[in-house]
């Protein structure tokens, strides 16, 4: 067969793509040789609005709308960077409650990604099953914060709502049930041919490439790169609640699924530890002053490292707010993974990245 280069577009509206993103694949016969991406469909201009429209104490609600899936991580990272420029101390209880919400959010985000991966493998039943198993977590989030997706739970000084005893019991019960289900899922993802053999060796990223292209989050950890911001900062009490870094090797879709599944198990352990040991204290403390100076904060979102840069000069409006989102930084790594793969695998590989375009474009 002669070599012929074909351009195949994917997106911006496509059945297997939840996100408005356009990829243009240059394919040589069936093989992808180059990828061009257009990620600007969701650009709204949040960074500018945060410095011209909203005061510093409202920004936590605005940046939560950068991304619905990691909303809590966005508002938490912003809040913590703003708090480091103000005078005051967050109580230990508020810190524990913040971590609890972040980890619950990570569980449901990873489960959503896994359900997408199984849907793209042609396993519709498992998609439905994981989406069904995810509902108790959504329910817990609603019980704690009052809403299923956009929590608006974190504010400067602490958290907005206290947790009641009955909710703590609910969390224990639901997480215990979920643990059993995730263990079954691990078995399924390891042994089912549709999910394991189909995905082994596909969309692989080597450790060297991961370092060269600065891959982040589960993609990097699946390639064997030991990086997790949760152990790179001591502002949140991660070391006290049993956090472990989950890594794998191989860097293919199968390894990414495994990393996500084991991270869910680790998050469940952490949530259980938090619920059984929430310290006493206030949920909100007063912070004084206006943000002055520069602060840079990183936090591990479900998709990788999230960074906020805040600059203020003692005014209610900030001078600059910079958001670096995980998907945005990983796009060069995505492009590298696509090269050399079969076009037929493109949707499955894309789903395994768990891309978030609303994060990317802001």
């Amino acid at each position, binding site marked *: 067969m002669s070599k012929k280069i074909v351009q195949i577009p994917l997106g911006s509206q496509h059945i297997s793509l939840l996100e408005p993103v356009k990829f243009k694949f240059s394919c040589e016969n069936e093989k992808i040789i180059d990828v061009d991406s257009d*990620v*600007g469909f969701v*650009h709204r*201009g949040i*960074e*500018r609005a945060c410095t*011209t429209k909203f005061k510093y104490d409202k920004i936590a609600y605005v940046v939560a709308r950068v991304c619905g899936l990691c909303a809590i991580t966005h508002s938490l990272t912003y809040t913590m960077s703003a708090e*480091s420029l103000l005078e005051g101390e967050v109580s230990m209880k508020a810190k524990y409650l913040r971590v609890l919400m972040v980890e619950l959010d990570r569980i449901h985000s990873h489960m959503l990604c896994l359900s997408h991966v199984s849907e793209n493998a042609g396993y519709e039943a498992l998609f439905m099953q994981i989406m069904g198993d995810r509902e108790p977590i959504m329910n817990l989030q609603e019980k704690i914060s009052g809403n299923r997706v956009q929590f608006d739970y974190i504010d400067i000084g602490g958290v907005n709502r206290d947790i009641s005893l009955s909710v703590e019991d609910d969390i224990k019960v639901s997480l215990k049930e979920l643990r059993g289900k995730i263990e079954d899922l691990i078995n399924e993802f390891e042994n089912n041919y549709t999910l394991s053999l189909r995905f082994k060796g596909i969309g692989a990223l080597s450790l060297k490439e991961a*370092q*060269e*292209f*600065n891959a982040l989050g589960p993609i990097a950890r699946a390639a064997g*790169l*030991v*990086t*997790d911001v949760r*152990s*790179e*900062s*001591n*502002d949140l009490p991660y070391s006290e609640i049993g956090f472990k870094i989950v890594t794998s090797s191989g860097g293919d879709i199968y390894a990414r699924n495994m990393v996500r599944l084991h991270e869910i198990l680790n998050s469940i352990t952490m949530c259980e530890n938090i619920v059984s040991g929430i310290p006493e204290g206030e949920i909100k403390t007063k912070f004084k002053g206006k943000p002055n100076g*520069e*602060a*840079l*904060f*990183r936090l591990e979102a479900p998709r990788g*490292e999230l*960074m906020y*840069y805040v*600059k203020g000069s003692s005014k209610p409006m900030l*001078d*600059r707010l*910079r958001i*670096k989102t995980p998907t*945005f*930084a990983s*796009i*060069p*790594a995505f492009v590298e993974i696509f090269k050399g793969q079969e076009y037929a695998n493109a949707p499955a590989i894309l789903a395994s990245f768990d891309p978030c375009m609303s994060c990317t*474009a802001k």
Partner: protein
Amino acid sequence: MKINKIEVTLQNVVEKITKFYDPTTTHFLTLNGVAIDETKTEIQWIFADYMKLNDNTVFYVVVDQEDVVPSIVEVIPSAIMSQREVVDMFGIEVQNSAKGLYLDEDSLQKPLSGGCTL
């Protein structure tokens, strides 16, 4: 988190970053711009170490609107996206970086630069 700020110039920034950057221990976070006044902009290259507590390194340089910022894609391939973003947001030229990552022709141009008012 702690920030180590290192001042550089437009001429030696690529050299300094090449010397500093080791892909096995450090990763590049982002290229950031901060508008200082109507014409001056501070450009920052932000790095962080893997598995080290609170360690961020920031190289910074203050540039004018007409200056051309050198590209570091040769050293760090993943910088391409944030370079294109800075071109769009601040209207500052970066070597080998095209316009139009986010903004269309009829939307507000260089929205984050100091001279931009609605």
